[in-house]
């Protein structure tokens, strides 16, 4: 008796498994991870440390948004809202419940996850029921509502001024005994580990049978429905999962910057940033978030220097000076151009090129 022939999915999976150790992308990923781990030892500047961790956080956030927009095909503008919930939940639990302890920190994360999970299901149940394109508008309205709530409810959230929680234990004092790490570095490695864990979790999620179903729904909803999949349930699971991931990242963000306010955690600008990261990096690639986050945050850190340069070069003309100051303008133009000419983003375009080369007939 011979084994039954593998199904197309099984065949594709075993082929991918065979390729796993030969694919260059794996080593690129490992090298990136090594760079993140070794950075504090090599470059002791705080600015670089801050940039590196923010890139890691936002890359993971962009990846979680990619799960919604790229793998499930629903455009949500409420993703930053869940990020903000996490940020506020942790800040409130650590800052307002008396002493700053590990228990309160965990409680903050747990509360944020529960609230976000419930709200994501509620919002999804409302807005996924209607036409898919409504989802964008409704989530945008919810996000705006959350922002206004955070500003107005000053007694709890600190209003526009925000909250600055103090971290407990080793995150503040450091671990001087074993490794001689400062509080900053303990936080750095903890958050890096969380980001890595979430990234692997999302990678598992999108490559699972569930993820394949989501992509099927994205590509042809009617057909997926005809095949017997309850598309609504799958979309709800995906958007709730991504929202919870965003919540955890929001909590991590609070742990790193030790400060939240409505503008920096909940606002539409955060949402736009994440969207830009996903589009620049490549929609539906997951790892594109790393490229997008590195590009956007790197540019933003370096641009103040450029602004000084612009002020000195265009000292005479006010209009030219203003033109050099509004760097967001160039991002807007770049964004439109990327959507036009590289709709698949940096990573998507690279993958496309690689795929074309491997399927092209051998020359000569």
């Amino acid at each position, binding site marked *: 008796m011979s084994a039954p022939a593998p199904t197309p999915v099984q065949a594709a999976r075993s082929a991918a498994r065979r390729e796993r150790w030969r694919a260059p992308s794996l080593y690129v990923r490992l090298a990136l991870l090594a760079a993140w781990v070794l950075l504090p030892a090599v470059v002791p500047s705080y600015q670089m440390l801050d940039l590196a961790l923010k890139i890691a956080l936002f890359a993971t956030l962009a990846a979680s948004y990619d799960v919604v*927009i790229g793998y499930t095909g629903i*455009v949500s503008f409420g993703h930053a809202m869940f990020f903000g919930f996490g940020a506020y939940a942790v800040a409130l639990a650590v800052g307002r419940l008396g002493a700053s302890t590990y228990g309160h920190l965990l409680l903050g994360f747990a509360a944020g996850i529960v609230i976000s999970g419930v709200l994501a299901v509620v919002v999804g149940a409302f*807005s996924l029921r209607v036409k898919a394109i409504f989802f*964008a508008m409704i989530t945008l309205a919810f996000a*705006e*509502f959350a922002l206004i709530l955070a500003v107005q409810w000053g007694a709890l959230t600190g209003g526009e001024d925000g909250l600055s929680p103090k971290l407990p234990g080793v995150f503040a004092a450091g671990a001087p005994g074993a490794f001689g790490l400062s509080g900053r570095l303990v936080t750095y490695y903890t958050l890096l580990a969380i980001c890595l864990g979430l990234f692997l979790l999302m990678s598992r999620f999108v490559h699972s049978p569930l993820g394949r179903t989501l992509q099927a729904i994205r590509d042809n909803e009617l057909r997926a429905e005809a095949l017997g999949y309850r598309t609504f349930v799958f979309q709800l699971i995906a958007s709730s999962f991504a929202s919870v991931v965003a919540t955890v990242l929001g909590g991590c963000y609070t742990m790193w910057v030790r400060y939240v306010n409505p503008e920096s955690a909940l606002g539409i600008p955060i949402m736009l940033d994440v969207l830009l990261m996903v589009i620049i990096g490549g929609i539906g690639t997951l790892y594109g978030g790393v490229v997008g986050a590195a590009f956007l945050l790197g540019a933003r850190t370096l641009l103040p220097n450029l602004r000084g340069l612009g002020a000195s070069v265009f000292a005479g003309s006010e209009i030219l000076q203003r*033109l050099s100051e509004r760097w967001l303008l160039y991002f*807007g133009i770049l964004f439109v151009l990327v959507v*036009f000419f590289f*709709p698949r983003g940096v990573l998507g375009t690279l993958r496309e090129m690689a795929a074309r080369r491997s399927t092209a007939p051998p020359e000569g």
Partner: protein
Amino acid sequence: MKRAAPLVIGAALLLLLPLVAIEPRAWLTLTVAGLAMGMLIFLVASGLTLIFGLMDVLNFAHGALFSWGAYAGFTVAMLVNGHWGWAASPSVVANAGLFLLAVAAAVVVAFGLGIALERVIVRPVYGQHLFQILITLGATIVLEELIRIAWGPNDQVMPVPLTFQGSWDVADVVVLRFPVIAIGLGALVYGGMLWLLNRTRVGLIVRAGVENNEMVQVMGHDIHRYFTGVFAVGSALAGVGGLMWGMFSQSIRPSMGGEQLIFAFIVVIIGGLGSVTGSLVGALLVGLSYNYVAYLVPKAAIGVTMGIMVLVLLVRPTGLYGVGK
């Protein structure tokens, strides 16, 4: 007639129920303010519903056109006022002249921008909602930043014609003047749109083009030119809405469009996509309930629009006047 009955009952309930808690005089002032706010939102939402409902384009740049209209009107009003002092003069004719010139400027600028947007940005992405959202978001960033470059990032004080300010005393009730003008303009736009869409040849072709694009082209009509026109008209409505809003709140800022866009989206969702009457009803619903609730429970005012939207979607997922596609 059967379809009108729930509307009449709903309107009566909405208007009369607050009388239980609010004294009649304050109620009248609030009602006028609510109608005016509703009409201002309608100006923005009507453009949106035209573009989205008829052409199936998700135009997130609508808010930026709103801001551009406000700034264009502001510039003209400042120029005219600076040269001839028409805003500060007590003459109604001079005031109206300034107002009309500002409206004309807003219309021209927003119309032109609408044509440019449709030609360059929107045309390649017809039928792809995700890319429409992305690309019009990009356009929004660019347009808003251009405002910041041209006019500076700070708030500006909008010159409002003298006789348009203040209020009338009608039987001891304070009726603000500008809201009345806004209500008139909104009614005019509503009537004009219904007439254009339902009674003219252009409206017929556009509606037919939405139903069956290719068939209309076979009949010899260049449907793309009509679509450009519809997009530009929708943009012009956004521009007028921006100018009116600027005069209503007496100040303008670059991000004003994005803030109003949320209201407009909520209204379009409540009213149902593509229905002009729906967006009028939705806008008045939002405007009135916002004002009543803001008077009774100030902190809950923002929540009430969201509440209405959720409620409407629960009962009718396609909106009040929407037809499921």
